[in-house]
């Protein structure tokens, strides 16, 4: 090294450049895309440019004037790229069910009709005589929209454009997601802290065994772990059979396909994320502190309360954060061991992303989840007053 500070800074920058590039490509860029896709609209406008310009002036009452209908016919007649047309149809159908069959029927009728002859849309399909299809068309034309974001929190715009309640359950499911994640985090902390303390205090094969017991499940597929809980928890499963055999209960307990099953399975699956951070923090605490405390006259409980616990708390904090964040995104475990009232928001996001290719809606739900999580994180940061909470 030649020692010049500027050069050292350049090589330091070059060294971290791959990390920044990685973050930009696999974190920032998808995030920006997700936000963009949830508020942009323009797919309909792209394949129906003439309708877009002529429907803008329509006041939304009754049926639009004849020139709007003619513009739509002209747009449908013009050849358009099939995939772009599909995007537009999907967008319209997600607002008013039935647009898909309506547009495909109309498009083929318009294309088959001889050139000069006038076409009446309502004669092709009576649904064109209803105002709501035209209103949906008009609402789909601007380049930006708030409908996905509104729909993500159970709201929509009515025909006058004011915001009203919508029939969906996203808010309930969102609150449920946070409740389950919080409960799982609490249970993980209650089990994980003593476990990590015992593991850190012991030596030799006991410690190795305890660590292995945490790590081994971590290396097993999530699906396998969840499926084994199904075997254990079901009505004729091991746990219920054992309880019945020793006579604690005379009717099998309902441990699965409800909230209990979800909490048990998720706590087990996520426990390693709590135990490992606490354990690594505990290892860093000098072993002579506890004897030192008792030599100064502290009882064992007092020494634990005033010496060990405060020093272990950063581990608990980062473990809790980790467990909470991971728990928010769960959906396979609730799907397999939960009931209908235990499904989390990811299952709704998955439905829109893979089930109906409505990426705007999936993006909007993801954005709401992200905002809510960030807000919680900031509150948590303020409360814990730790300057570097992630690194803890």
């Amino acid at each position, binding site marked *: 090294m030649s020692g010049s500070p500027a050069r050292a800074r350049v090589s330091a920058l070059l060294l971290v450049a791959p990390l920044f590039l990685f973050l930009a490509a696999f974190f920032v860029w998808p995030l920006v895309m997700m936000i963009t896709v949830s508020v942009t609209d323009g797919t309909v406008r792209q394949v129906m440019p003439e309708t877009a310009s002529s429907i803008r002036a329509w006041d939304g009452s009754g049926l639009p004037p004849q020139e709007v209908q003619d513009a739509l016919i002209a747009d449908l007649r013009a050849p358009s790229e099939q995939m772009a047309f599909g995007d537009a149809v999907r967008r319209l159908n997600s607002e008013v069910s039935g647009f898909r069959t309506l547009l495909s029927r109309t498009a083929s009728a318009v294309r088959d009709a001889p050139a000069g002859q006038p076409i009446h849309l309502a004669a092709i399909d009576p649904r064109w005589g209803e105002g709501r299809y035209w209103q949906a068309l008009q609402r789909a034309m601007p380049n930006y929209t708030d409908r996905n974001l509104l729909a993500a929190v159970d709201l929509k715009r009515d025909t006058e454009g004011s915001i009203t309640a919508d029939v*969906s359950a996203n808010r309930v499911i969102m609150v449920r997601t946070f409740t389950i994640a919080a409960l799982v985090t609490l249970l993980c902390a209650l089990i994980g802290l003593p476990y990590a303390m015992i593991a850190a205090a012991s030596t030799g094969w006991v410690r190795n065994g305890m660590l292995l017991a945490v790590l081994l499940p971590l290396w097993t597929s999530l699906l396998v772990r969840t499926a084994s809980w199904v075997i254990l928890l079901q009505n004729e499963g091991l746990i219920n059979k054992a309880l019945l055999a020793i006579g604690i209960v005379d009717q099998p307990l309902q441990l699965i396909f409800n909230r209990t099953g979800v909490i048990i399975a998720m706590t087990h699956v996520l426990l390693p994320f709590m135990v490992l951070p606490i354990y690594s923090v505990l290892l860093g605490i000098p072993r002579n502190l506890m004897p030192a405390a008792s030599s100064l006259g502290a009882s064992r409980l007092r020494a634990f309360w005033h010496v060990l616990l405060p020093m272990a708390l950063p581990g608990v904090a980062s473990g809790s954060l980790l467990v909470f964040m991971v728990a928010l995104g769960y959906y396979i475990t609730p799907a397999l061991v939960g009931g209908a009232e235990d499904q989390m928001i990811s299952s709704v996001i998955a439905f829109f992303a893979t*089930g109906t290719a409505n990426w705007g809606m999936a993006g909007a739900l993801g954005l709401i989840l992200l905002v809510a999580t960030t807000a919680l994180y900031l509150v948590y940061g303020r409360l814990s007053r730790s300057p570097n909470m992630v690194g803890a």
Partner: protein
Amino acid sequence: MKATSTLLRIGGAGLALGLMVAGGTASARDLTVVSWGGNYQDAQKKIYFEPFSKEIGKPVLDESWDGGIGVIAAKVKAGVPNWDVVQVETEELELGCADGFYEKIDWATLGGKDKFLPAAVSDCGVGAIVWSTMLSYDADRLKTPPTSWADFWDTTKFPGKRGFRRGPKYSLEFALMADGVKPEEVYKVLGTPEGVDRAFKKLDELKPNIVWWEAGAQPLSLLASGEVVMSTAYNGRLAGINKTEGKNFQGVWPGSIYAIDSWVILKDSPNAKEAMDFIAFASAPANQSKLPDYIAYGLPNKEAAAMVPPALQKDLPTTQANLTGAIALDGAFWVDNVEELTKRFNAWLAK
């Protein structure tokens, strides 16, 4: 200076390596076939994938998926898809065909459209199997067999929980049948707002007793463990588990809903020619007729269906006796309404 140039050299080497890897995977990918996994795909591997690979003298890769038009849309819009042939359900076929996600089928290589059941023929897809969703129960546990959806709803005559696939599809149809709608009129009623209300009202009655499932293997384990007394289930899996695990699971054919799964070729597939040959291979009577040996699905190729031995015929959805009182899934209805009804269904569940 030396440090910087070393760094640059390392960076350059890394970049070159990255490009090489990217270039290597983009060219000459082997034919990739995607199906539904499980014992069904094991059977397909034996009778379609492996023999076809031998015939063309090249490897055939296979993957499994769980459906969803969003998956197909993402693959096709990425440019060159990394799948070639995919087995899709009715709605994915209709949606993807309308949106241009699939290559057109060359029916001449398949020997003409009239060799197949009319419902198995489409511009973009070739029917692969006919399968049913039906009322099923463990005949070793239930002494009086249920015979209709009304029985499924009758919790005094048949106490216990019921398994149902989570989602509006099938649930609404079966609810209407339980409410006395004739099978052939189900979609007419469901097409009206009152019909949808009626179906949800009927589901209300059973809601406290329903255990919802999502994956096709779940209803079988629910029945096997006695968690539920009856469940909706796929017919092929029922016959399969009776054979492999000696169960006595029975299904009720009247009131069942059958659907066709199809082979499609993804748009701009680099192996489109081989993909078409594969579909022709999998549709040839000599090959397709082997499928019911492994799993009880109906065959869309008429000649292949005729070659199935009578002993296996009784479990197939395409057998005449099993078609009585059964209806076909209305793909067009669900393509239009799945999003709105799923929204309403989720809200109903959360209530």
